[in-house]
């Protein structure tokens, strides 16, 4: 797939200057384009497909003007510059009151992983970064959740192809995704994490079916993906054969680093939105709002540190699990504050807008499970940060 270069007759963002100059330029662009951006001021209710279609418009606007190309290398359609610029765009977007597209989350998680492990696929990455395609992450299975290394979906080498058989579950937005980053077993069933490989797979491949799972938030946020003798090309492999665990662990740094940064920017803007809801009950909600801010500050400070270290190319190690725990509690604290501020509209309100708050409240409940439960994070901290003896 060729990289589509912006044809807009505008000057490109100042990616080679300071981060502060870039932020100022982006704020100006946001102000100049307020009318065009207005439809993206509030999260949209609707199905995952409708939401994604709406997000695609915003993502294309940002891409064509060069903002979301900033901080990504030219190989994947980017303009180069400090990867921190990506964090600036999402932060300023949220601070100006716009929705951060949910689909940007995966870009910050899968993007760096493909850049690092799959040089041949950099061109394809542009389609995801631009928002033309949604990609998803296929790790969990019905029998392999927290115990990821026990997964059984199998990839068998057959000449110049791999044949996939098995099932994935809890795949975010799988049913509207075009590609899946798939962790599959290539070693013996007993090989645990040593016998896994990563693949980037086209979900339109014959033999793959996807079933959306209706979730408590009213949307089909998750899905199941079934593989029945699905044949994929040899170059679908990302990283080494049996080297999938290293790819997955590399990816999880970004899920707990870049994504945490993006999420705190979003949660902060949601707290501001909740504070500005009509008839907010200030006195009753003060404790909950204070609680939410304590969490937001802790998450922002720790995830900024993480983001800076990721950008500097440092390996983060187990301390990243601390950020993931803070992310889980912050998600809940912010949406609990929103509930308190608009009480009892979350419970009984049917007016427009309330449904989105309910949806976000439900999502916040899931934050301590998605991407590795907080219990697993606490295990990692106890094992590898504190090194507490087991016997």
């Amino acid at each position, binding site marked *: 797939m060729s990289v589509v270069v912006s044809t807009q007759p505008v000057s490109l963002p100042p990616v080679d200057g300071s981060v502060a100059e870039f932020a100022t330029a982006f704020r100006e662009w946001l102000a100049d384009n307020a009318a065009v951006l207005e439809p993206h001021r509030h999260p949209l209710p609707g199905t995952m497909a409708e939401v994604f279609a709406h997000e695609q418009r915003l993502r294309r606007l940002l891409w064509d003007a060069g903002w979301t190309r900033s901080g990504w290398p030219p190989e994947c359609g980017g303009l180069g510059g400090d990867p921190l610029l990506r964090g600036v765009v999402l932060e300023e977007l949220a601070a100006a009151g716009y929705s951060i597209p949910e689909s940007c989350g995966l870009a910050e998680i899968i993007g760096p992983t493909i850049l690092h492990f799959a040089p041949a696929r950099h061109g394809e990455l542009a389609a995801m970064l631009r928002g033309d395609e949604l990609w998803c992450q296929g790790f969990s299975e019905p029998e392999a959740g927290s115990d990821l290394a026990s997964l059984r979906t199998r990839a068998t080498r057959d000449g110049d192809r791999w044949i996939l058989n098995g099932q994935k579950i809890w795949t975010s937005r799988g049913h509207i995704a075009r590609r899946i980053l798939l962790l599959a077993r290539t070693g013996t069933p007993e090989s645990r994490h040593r016998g896994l490989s990563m693949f980037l797979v086209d979900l339109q491949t014959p033999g793959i079916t996807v079933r959306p799972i209706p979730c408590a938030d009213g949307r089909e946020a998750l899905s199941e993906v079934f593989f029945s003798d699905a044949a994929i090309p040899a170059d679908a492999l990302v990283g080494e054969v049996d080297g999938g665990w290293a790819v997955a662990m590399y990816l999880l740094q970004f899920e707990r680093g870049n994504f945490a940064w993006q999420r705190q920017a979003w949660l902060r803007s949601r707290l501001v939105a909740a504070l500005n809801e009509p008839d907010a009950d200030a006195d009753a909600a003060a404790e909950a709002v204070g609680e939410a801010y*304590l969490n937001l500050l*802790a998450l922002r400070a720790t995830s900024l540190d993480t983001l800076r270290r990721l950008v500097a190319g440092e390996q983060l190690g187990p301390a990243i699990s601390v950020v993931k725990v803070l992310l889980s509690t912050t998600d809940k604290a912010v949406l609990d504050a929103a509930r308190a501020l608009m009480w009892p509209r979350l419970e009984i309100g049917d007016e427009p807008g309330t449904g989105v708050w309910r949806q976000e409240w439900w999502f916040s409940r899931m934050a301590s499970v998605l991407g590795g439960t907080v219990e697993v994070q606490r*295990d990692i901290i106890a094992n590898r940060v504190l090194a507490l003896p087991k016997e």
Partner: protein
Amino acid sequence: MPEMSENELALLRESTRSLLDSADPVAVPGALAEQGWLDLLSEEPEPACSVLFEEQGRACAATPALDLVVLDAAGPVSMRTTAVVWPDFRRSLEPSSRLADDVLTVVGVVLAGWQRADEYLVPVAGPGAESADSVLVRVPADAVTAIPFAGLDASAGMALVRTTVSREAVTPTELRWSSVLPRAQRCVGHELVGLAAAVHTIAQEHVAQRRQFGKPLSSLQTVRHRLADIEVALAAARGALAAAWTTDDRRVTWAAKSLAWRAAAAAARDGQQLCGAMGFTREHQLHRFVRRAQLVDCLLGPGAWLVGTLGRDLVETREVPLVPALA
């Protein structure tokens, strides 16, 4: 401002630790002044304060070092013979001393070593409702009566002050309460983090050694998870305190002090639980840290109260600080 390297920080930490180990707590401010700590305070206030007060917490040392961060800003006062009358323990950030009808009513607490003082520096509530109007004044020590109290932590060596002083005895200074309060609150936060870290270490050592059911307590997941959560609380508090040093937004300091108290409270609660009955004895060292954490939290707005204060402020202004800044 040139940032301190990891190496320089480690050296500072080491020298601070050995000072706290060897010196009489009451003599610590004088020793710090001799070692050039005040120069560091004016050049690099964050590492100066974060290292000193976190180490003070770890050592569970009842020093009056908190006075230094105010005395340093007060101009020509003696570091050795001036003490600060801090606001007494109340749910307010305003000074508890007031000037009215030519009489200064001095109400507050003084830290260990107050007996050395020949002069007190006293924050005085201004005529307005906001601490922006409050200033600090100088009062001769012999005009003030300090009454030592034992309370929960007799080793703290603190005293309560409740005295009236005539206006003629009061010397004004240019120093505003609002300009010293956030820095002092952050120092209290760093001390709470040090206390929490010390309790965390004590609890980890205990559960690794203590065997029940034929294996160490540290092999049990509920034990491991409690200790992991204290680690998270410590990271949250340290991150927030570092952020507070980068901004003038006083709400960030309130949040950081609250998070530091949370870390100390979680460490005290769970650390004591994990040390079992031993943690409740005077033969075990844990109780000293628990006492001091609870007492220190009372200074300059208790952590639990600050959460609601902060919340009300956010609700009124309808906006949320963007701190620390990315750019």
